[in-house]
């Protein structure tokens, strides 16, 4: 059994048939996972400095040299690395007095902080499968982002208390700006919002739950939604990036909604994390420093604030180490451009826009296939996995340890 690291569901039931240098058959792997695994055989990175191929030792030496001479280094990425690599990364940041941030800073961070600090109640996906009768996908389309979410946990499987599953006992609600693939499966319970209307929608639900007439949307449908939520025995809200980007500083509204719903029945929240170990990094940093991301270790103590976010730090830093992410592709253009101008060290198993622009490229093993470790699933469950293929490549953890030794 192999664990897929394609998304934050970390499916553990993958069966691979291997032949030297190729995966001949992959059972139970979804299309996203299939793409992730097959990517192993194309566009692999080689150790490089300034576009010239060098030995691994030289690349690691150069990386250490850049980080050592930098005054304000930034360590960014981490969401596609194991807990072990992340722990070494945090140690490295401490040693360098660097700013460390992960992809949650420009993603689910604002919500994840509330979940991890206990302000918003959460549960595991196994609880969802066993007990949940209402799942709300809000600004998320798991059919595309986490293909097996509905079939493994949220809607179709038969759980301990939900033997009749989707046929009779479960309801799936989609709230989105477009009729996504998931919304199609929710049939009647799809609520369409214009971009940015999430706050008004929450206020309307709150009004309905208090027995008032909502001022937003189709009144009949809103009252129908209120009735479904009231009758729920165990509900789960899955907020996606759509909701997080729309609410931003109004995230308190979601908290109010969840408190209100919990007065009536049980409602939990599980953020739809994208990368397979983003939550792991957030948890690890929270345990160590009290903050989930955007931490600077300058002057020996951990400080937190928006000035340490990747958006701000990219413009200020004089060297950056990017690992387990492709910020040049994913971040806003101004940030990406600022990041591309500083000496960049990229640790990645595969070629990306970031490795193309990087001064130093260090190849690493692909977790799940070539290296083992521990990662945290989107619901906070720790999952340990073993490598499926033997590889000579160093894992992220080993690369970082060697950089640390060289500094």
């Amino acid at each position, binding site marked *: 059994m192999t664990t897929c690291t394609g998304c934050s569901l970390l499916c553990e*039931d993958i069966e691979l048939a291997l032949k030297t240098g190729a995966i001949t058959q992959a059972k*139970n792997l*979804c299309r*996203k996972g*299939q793409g992730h695994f097959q990517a192993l055989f194309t566009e692999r990175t080689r150790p490089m400095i300034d576009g010239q191929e060098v030995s691994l030792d030289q690349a690691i030496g150069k990386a250490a040299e850049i980080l050592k001479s930098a005054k304000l280094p930034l360590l960014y990425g981490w969401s596609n690395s194991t807990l072990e690599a992340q722990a070494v990364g945090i140690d490295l940041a401490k040693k360098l007095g660097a700013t460390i941030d992960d992809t949650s800073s420009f993603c689910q961070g604002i919500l994840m902080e509330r979940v991890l600090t206990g302000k918003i109640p959460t549960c595991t996906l196994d609880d969802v499968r066993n007990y949940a009768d209402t799942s709300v996908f809000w600004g998320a389309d798991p059919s*595309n982002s986490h293909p*097996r979410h509905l079939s493994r946990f949220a809607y*179709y499987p*038969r759980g301990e208390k939900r033997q009749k599953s989707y046929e009779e006992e479960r309801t799936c609600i989609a709230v989105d700006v477009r009729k996504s693939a998931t919304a199609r499966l929710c049939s009647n319970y799809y609520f369409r919002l214009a971009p940015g209307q999430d706050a008004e929608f929450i206020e309307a639900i709150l009004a309905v739950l208090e027995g008032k007439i909502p001022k937003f949307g189709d009144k009949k449908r809103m009252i129908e939604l209120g009735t479904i939520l009231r009758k729920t025995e165990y509900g789960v809200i899955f907020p996606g990036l759509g909701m997080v980007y729309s609410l931003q500083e109004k995230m308190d509204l979601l908290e109010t909604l969840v408190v209100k719903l919990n007065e009536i029945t049980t409602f939990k929240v599980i953020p739809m994390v994208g990368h397979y170990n983003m939550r792991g990094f957030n948890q690890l940093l929270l345990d160590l420093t009290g903050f989930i991301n955007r931490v600077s270790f300058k002057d020996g103590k951990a400080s937190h604030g928006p000035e340490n976010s990747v958006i701000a730090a990219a413009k200020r830093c004089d060297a950056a180490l990017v690992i387990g992410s492709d910020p040049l592709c994913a971040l806003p253009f101004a940030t990406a451009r600022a990041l591309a101008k500083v000496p960049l060290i990229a640790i990645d198993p595969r070629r990306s826009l970031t490795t193309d622009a990087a001064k130093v490229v260090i190849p690493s093993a692909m977790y799940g296939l070539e290296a083992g470790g521990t990662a945290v699933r989107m619901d906070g469950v720790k999952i340990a996995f073993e490598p499926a293929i033997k590889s000579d490549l160093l894992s992220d953890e080993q690369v970082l340890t060697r950089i640390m030794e060289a500094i």
Partner: protein
Amino acid sequence: MVGAMEIYMLLPKTNCKKCGLPTCMAFAVGLLGREKKIDECTPLIEEKKYEAKLKKLREVMAPLENASETGLIIHPEKCFGCGNCVVACPVNVAAEPTRCAVGLGPKSDKVILAVEDGIVKCMNAKECRRFGPNKILCNACTATCPSKAIEFV
């Protein structure tokens, strides 16, 4: 998916009965149910004036040729490999109550649907509830598909 009416429009519409059926409409339904073959309509094959229609008919009927015995068609280019159908299929659930029923991928070969290489595959179609004399119109796999990758003829 092609319908009986669409097929009928591409037939000679003369009700010549050469195929053994009373009307061209009956023949169209027969084609759709895969009880009849295009070649059985002799005027369509032999007469030159129907050439364009024949070509079009073969085109629209092409996807049906890949259907399994139960009429199940999988469009691999549309499939997400999400496994909704694997978990929802009642025959799969009965065959693997400890795996398919709780959302995991199947292990044995007794199931009808399984995801392989990111795309759903159909096996043992004879076990399907749509097969045999006591067939029922189960649609668990098509109703749960987010991308309409599974269809029945």
